[in-house]
């Protein structure tokens, strides 16, 4: 069984936020408002943090792009009282929106802060695109028709793309990748099977120094960062 993971090369990331916006487009995530941003309530399935270190004149800024880490020992899975979020066999931590009761315990439990609560209903014509570009038409509709107010959501490694790709027999990580990986202009993000020694991600992890965020909490995340 494949185990999906993502490798993000911090050397190549320029902080353009293309991954953030591509994810929002692919999964129809609503935008926030100025008030929501002040209250830190705006939904982002992928965040890019600019971390600066050093004092003037030797200052360094690093961009750390954080999707859901899809941890093997995910704290959000353990604490959910309704068993709405669960760990799929192929490594993706996924959520059944119909079971979620909106208690937000998982948001408290997540050490990375990548989960978002839907405080509002999505507007009808949020992102109205009468002109679908040709390569979207064959992907079909996102399995969840409209987001519901009162549930928690997060990045899903675009499982709809992966499942459809596996059905059609395409190679995941090469032909079929999540939206953020596809959008990255510098090629800093890579997706693939961590258990396959021939995949690009395994090769990079073996040849370059990598780290994961908050390793000391033993959550075993599936997103690796390569040193810059």
């Amino acid at each position, binding site marked *: 069984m494949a185990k999906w993971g993502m490798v993000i090369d911090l050397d190549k990331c320029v902080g353009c*936020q293309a991954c953030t916006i591509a994810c*929002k487009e692919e999964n129809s995530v609503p935008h*926030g408002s*100025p008030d929501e941003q002040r209250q830190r309530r705006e939904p982002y399935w992928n965040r890019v943090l*600019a971390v600066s270190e050093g004092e003037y004149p030797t200052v360094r800024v690093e961009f750390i792009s954080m999707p859901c880490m899809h941890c093997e020992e995910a704290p959000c899975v353990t604490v959910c009282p309704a068993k709405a979020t669960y760990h799929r066999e192929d490594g993706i931590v996924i959520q059944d929106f119909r079971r979620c009761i909106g208690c937000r315990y998982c948001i408290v439990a997540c050490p990375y802060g990548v989960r978002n609560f839907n405080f509002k209903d999505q507007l009808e014509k949020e992102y109205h695109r009468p002109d679908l570009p040709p390569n979207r038409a064959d992907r079909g509709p996102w399995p969840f028709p409209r987001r519901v107010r009162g549930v928690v959501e997060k990045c899903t490694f675009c499982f709809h793309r992966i499942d459809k790709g596996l059905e059609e027999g395409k190679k995941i990580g090469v032909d079929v990748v999540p939206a953020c990986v596809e959008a990255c202009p510098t090629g800093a993000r890579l997706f693939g099977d961590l258990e396959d020694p021939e995949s690009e991600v395994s090769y990079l992890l073996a040849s370059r120094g990598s780290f994961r965020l908050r390793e000391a909490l033993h959550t075993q995340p599936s997103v690796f960062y390569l040193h810059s």
Partner: protein
Amino acid sequence: MEPLYDTRSITDIIFEIAGRLGGTVASSFNGIGGGAEGFVKYRTGDIIPWDELKEKGVWLGPAYQYGNYDGIFNTPSGKFEFYSANLAGVLEKTAGAGNRLDCLPHYQEVEFLGDEGSYPLTLLTYQPLLNVENGHQNYPWAQELYMVMHGFGWGNFIEINKEKAGELGIRDRQMVWVESPFGRIKARARVLEGMHPEVVCMATGQGHYAEGQWQKDIGVNPNDIIGVSYDHLSGQSSFFNTRVKVYRA
């Protein structure tokens, strides 16, 4: 090819409008053809005959031959010039007897607007990533992460060096007035390590006057307080030489 219905080409319409406006606008459109077809004839008249152009549809100049410097050197002496005779000619025609040494490569001291005593800091305006292709402020997804390097959106900041902010008594995210000899604007301060102590920085692109559903009342426009100044040798406008002072609101 005949035009559809009652339409004319855009070039014809521009000529017509210029003529109706009169004055200096109309006079700058005089003698260059009077219409779409006339303009093309005027531009290509001495290069290729009109009938030949209609038949071929295109004019190709001669290919560049390597080493043929007579074709590309437009200097009066035909050689590479350190003392630019072209520039000297233009200066004599327009400015009279100027400083002849200006035509040599030289260092020109910057003329700041505002004196250093009252306005100690220099304002630098920059275009952040989402402004480069002109204005993504009306798209909510783009607006909410407008300041890409800071991870905030829905506004822009005046970015100050941390030590300087300490001297001025300004904390991060506090509202401050940015005043120049030409006006003042109120902005939110962002205290950073990555700024030069004598420079403050502000992103353009916010502070729209016109309505827009997502860009209304968001941010401030630093161009409101920048002075108008030109480089007297090249004629280009300079944007980065306004001095400002920053104080708490």
